[in-house]
């Protein structure tokens, strides 16, 4: 066994050669993704980030605005809409639209959640809503990049990549940063990329079924025995080659990577095999029900991954080429009914399951979308993109739930109290993971780059962890 420092000096190939194993790495070459000590005592070991792709209406879910109903069908008063632009509507002309859903006071805390979330409402006391989120990108791709990487422009590392860069992984047999999507992302893979960090930190896509990782299975027509024999041939040739080049650890690392790739073929499917989960557990997530089966499986898988020490799990709900929250452009009612039906029970099930297994305390669950939707109607039945004020929520990691931070204005238009941007949120997430957003840096273009750039002063961990309302 070598220490990290030994390796860095021995390998002589720079960091790249050591950056073995976004998926796996041999113990003797532990490097890029082995667990690393945090800056301070962490509240959470893992993050499950539930990303609602396409834009969820805040005024119909977690930010009740009775005034919208009162003034339904009227334009915004005075200069309220000045200076705001978005994808399709004109803020000066479009009409206010009250929420078609009732809000209820839920749990002991009385946190207000709309009727779209009957299951989640049962966990109102676990979730802390941030009602004063805001951003400045109204188009999907820039807003998605912004929400995770802190920049509207692609090419910067995502939150998951930074987390894994900072903390490594507890499990060398699985990727440290796993992504499960519904397929087509409006942002492409940039949303979970490593940007200028070494590629080893980028998110690895997990799919459902017997082939969770791309190219995991042997090629068609090559059975297990034949595959093993070919791998033995590779190993034999490689050892012969290595015998004359023993000083080069990168050659050794590649030899090991094939063995681990092979082991992965049997081990990864075990993670995605949920057949051994009890009927009750599967039911909890809505698995087996048409509407909830897909996202339920993803949520259950997220728990199984976190249980095995995976650091960061990013789930996307919604896709550019199928059911999406963004269908709310023309059909608020249909889209939000459908997407909530798809995700409400699985998310509630996830919270319940994590809690009952004692995992919620060490897992941070974040729910967010790239932006909210306009309190004004688009056409007759829709709502447009709205980044100027919207809601997210967090649970687990010792957070005191049942509360809401900040507020948007009378009409849910702009965040006005305790305004929180993505940097504040990311600084908070890092701190819950035990990292100081000022100290988590990577030198690129002669600058010590940070996830939060020069921002993040509005970090609100203390509020989340304080017992006061």
């Amino acid at each position, binding site marked *: 066994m070598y220490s990290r420092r030994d390796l860095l000096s*021995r*390998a002589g*190939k*720079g960091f*790249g050669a050591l*950056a*073995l*194993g*976004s*998926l796996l*790495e041999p113990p003797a070459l532990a490097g890029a993704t082995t667990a690393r000590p945090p800056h301070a005592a962490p509240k959470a070991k893992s993050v499950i980030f539930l990303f609602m792709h396409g834009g969820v209406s805040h005024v119909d879910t977690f930010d009740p605005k009775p005034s919208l109903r009162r003034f339904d069908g009227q334009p915004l008063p005075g200069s309220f809409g000045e200076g705001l*632009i978005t994808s399709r509507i004109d803020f000066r002309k479009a009409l206010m639209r009250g929420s078609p859903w009732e809000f209820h006071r839920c749990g002991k805390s009385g946190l207000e959640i709309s009727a779209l979330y009957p299951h989640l409402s049962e966990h109102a006391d676990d979730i802390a809503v941030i009602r004063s989120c805001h951003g400045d990108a109204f*188009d*999907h*791709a820039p807003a998605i990049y912004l929400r995770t990487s802190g920049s509207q*422009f*692609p*090419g910067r590392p995502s939150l998951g990549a930074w987390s894994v860069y900072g903390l490594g992984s507890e499990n060398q047999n699985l990727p440290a940063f796993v992504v499960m*999507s519904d397929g*087509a*992302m409006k*942002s*492409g*893979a*940039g949303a979970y*990329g490593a940007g200028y960090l070494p*590629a080893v930190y980028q998110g690895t896509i997990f*799919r459902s079924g017997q*082939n969770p*990782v*791309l*190219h995991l*299975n042997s*090629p*068609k027509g090559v*059975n297990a025995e*034949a595959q093993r*024999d*070919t*791998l033995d*041939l590779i190993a034999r*040739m*490689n050892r012969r080659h290595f015998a004359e080049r023993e000083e*080069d650890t*990168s*050659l050794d690392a*590649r*030899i090991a*990577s*094939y063995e*681990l*790739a092979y082991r992965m073929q049997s081990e990864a499917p075990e993670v995605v095999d949920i057949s051994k989960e009890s009927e009750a557990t599967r039911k909890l997530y809505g698995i087996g029900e048409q509407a909830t089966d897909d996202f339920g499986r993803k949520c259950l898988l997220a728990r199984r991954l976190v249980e095995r020490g995976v650091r960061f799990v990013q789930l996307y709900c919604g896709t*550019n*080429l199928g059911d999406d929250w963004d269908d709310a452009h023309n059909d608020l009612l*249909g889209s939000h*009914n459908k997407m909530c039906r798809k995700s409400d029970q699985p998310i509630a099930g996830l919270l319940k399951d994590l809690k009952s297994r004692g995992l919620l305390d060490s897992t941070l669950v974040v729910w967010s979308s790239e932006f909210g939707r306009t309190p004004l109607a688009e056409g007759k*039945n829709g709502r447009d993109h709205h980044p100027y004020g919207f809601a997210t929520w967090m649970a687990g990691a010792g957070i005191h739930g049942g509360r809401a931070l900040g507020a948007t204005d009378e009409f849910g238009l702009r965040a006005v109290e305790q305004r929180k941007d993505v940097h504040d949120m990311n600084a908070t997430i890092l701190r819950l993971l035990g990292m100081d957003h000022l100290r988590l840096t990577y030198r690129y*273009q*002669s*600058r010590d780059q940070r996830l939060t750039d020069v921002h993040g002063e509005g970090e609100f961990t203390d509020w989340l962890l304080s017992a006061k309302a």
Partner: protein
Amino acid sequence: MITRLLLAGSLALSAATPEQALQILEKNCWSCHAGAVALSGLRLDSRAAALQGGKRGAALLPGKSSSSLLLRAITHADPKLAMPPGARLGDADVAVLREWVDAGAAWPASPARAVAPQWWSFRKPAASPGSIDTFIAAKLREKGLASSPAADRRTLIRRVTFDLHGLAPSESEITAFVNDANPKAYESLVDRLLASPHYGEKWGKHWLDLVRYGDTAGFEQDPYTLYAWRYRDYVIKSFNDDKPYDRFIKEQIAGDELYEDPEAQQGTGYFCVGPNRDMLYKVEDINRVESLTDFVDTTSSVFLGLSVGCARCHDHKYDPISQRDYYRMQAIFAPFQKTRVFLHYNNARGYDLGENTRTFKLYDISAEIGSLKAPYQDRLRQEKLSKLSPEIQAAFTVDENQRTPQQKAFFEAFAKQVAPKEDEILALMTAADKDRLQRAEKRLAGLYNNYAPGPFSPGLTDVGREAPRTYLPAKGVPPPGEEVGPGLLTVLGGKDIPEPPPASATTQRRRALAEWLASADNPLTARVMVNRVWQYHFGRGLVATPSDFGTRGAAPSHPELLDTLAAQFVQNGWSVKTLHRQILLSETYRRSSRPTPQASEKDPENQYLSHFRRRRLDAEEVRDAVLQSAGTLNAKMYGRAVVPALQAEELYGMSQPVSNAWVVTADVREHSRRSIYMISRRNFRMPLLEVFDRPEGVLSCSRRESSTTAPQSLTLLNGEFTLLQARALAEKALTAGDGNVAIAEVFRRVYAREPNADELKTAAEFLDRQSKRLGTPRDAVAELARGLLNTNEFLYLD
């Protein structure tokens, strides 16, 4: 008594301090705080200026060192004002300055010195006597290291062929070289390789990494940058022609302002092949700022090896680049306008006229086809609907906005079933209608006979002679701040750019920039390029941070060598091929990659090049070499981007429908062309290239990683690409013969060598077992090939 002695001591010292103090200031402070640079408004090159101070007030309070800003800064009393950035001054220097200030901060009487840039890379390089080998040898001696012996010829030809072509040498090339008794054998090999067009395909790719080249623009729609590949071809051709590097710079930065020749103007495609949101018109002003930022940042890091990005928001904290300088540079690009370069005027005009007419005809034909089909479609839909229950029918007849949720669900569920299909329509059509339809379709197809890309290349020019104004960002007050004009970096002696002549069609700002960048007097340009070439040959630059020659960059390992190569590069007419020859013919390049035990111990990173640095093939080389081994490589050059077939699971996660975003090239022979011709979408990298560290293509990439990951092994081992190529390889091997003959052929194709007896035995037993399992010898040989393609001997260069 003691006090008196100390006082006397300090008095004695103070006689010498003004000169000493000034030396300390010159050495440590002047690069940012003197002359025209004056970051934060502060100059420390005259007493008056120091007393006046900068934005934070007076730097010196004569007689009061403890409250002087200068002392507070150099003692790091306030962490926010710790100067100079990086290492703190030595205690002795601090003491000198303290005593000097306390003694009144007298300025030396000597005549004012001209402020010369202090940082090594800001001074013009000069050649020293010596060659690559003598400089390297001197350093090795100094470090007490012995060099490794020369590599054998077989190793050398494989190394240099991949290095210059990104491809493996053929078996006959190896044999010829190994047996060549001519003392100039290696020299002719290098010359042959440099003269081959494959050279541009390899070295053009390095350049494309730097200029963040892509065939699409990124973001949600990831739209095609239609003629981007013309710029890619221009780059390949430029390297093959050994276009002088100064000319190459000028064409890219200001080809439109400097040259009539459209071939040269193509260079300005440099500005158009990055990510952009040009097609999102609603945020045109934001996009413009993003483009300007991209132009300034990319241009300064690619050509000057400087990261100026920090100065966008404030004076640079580490390099002598002020915020004003940043915006002076931005003002150079402010009048930009993307355009099309007409590669041939008459053809371009003819193409546009043809498009115009074609579009007019197209409207009419499409309308006719639509109206011919419409009645049949209606009939079919009615018929299909009538077979469904009344509730479902209602869902289709009711107004879209009035549908109940149940009706909506019905509508979605049955929409496909009710939709008329193409063949059903045709079956129903009358002969006369069918005939009309066929004629219309024939006319439609006729419009696209011989349809091909137009004679255009993406390019850049100015909106005119007048530019939009550029302002500094203003803090606390409504924007804009103070207006700034175009200019070149002050620290490098850059001046304001004058107004263009009255008759000029453009502002000629980029022309001024281009000429300044491409000037022999620019201290950075040649150094940066020479260092890049060195890095691509040796895996690591003489400066390890190839796009950062500023004060935070790495110091050069061999400064005299770097400067000598840079000076010679300019003397040799900026010829990149001459530089290659110089490097490749050195003994340093030809050394074995086996380190001496002492080198492994003392210089594990091989900074001093006692031996050659072994490297893994890069992404494109892996794919191209697999095709080459299989004998399927199509060596055709140039042309529009090729979209190879991929498995559905490999295309996962694309932001747009695959039918639009991955339009597989119809001619399958194109699929096995070199990787540089494969489409590079910004939102999606081909998995095989992605796992082998092809960069994302969003920001300039000056040095690729070389990672080793399990996904890499999985993809090369299990991906369909490898399997298909292994089978093709097996076919070829089996035409040579079976058994040991086939085995030898597989070895020759993958390793370019014969198997030894032991390997032959291992392989024969392997084939025996695999044939039994897989049924056919062909599949077994394919397995042998798949295995060898995954080995380190194939993937690494000694």
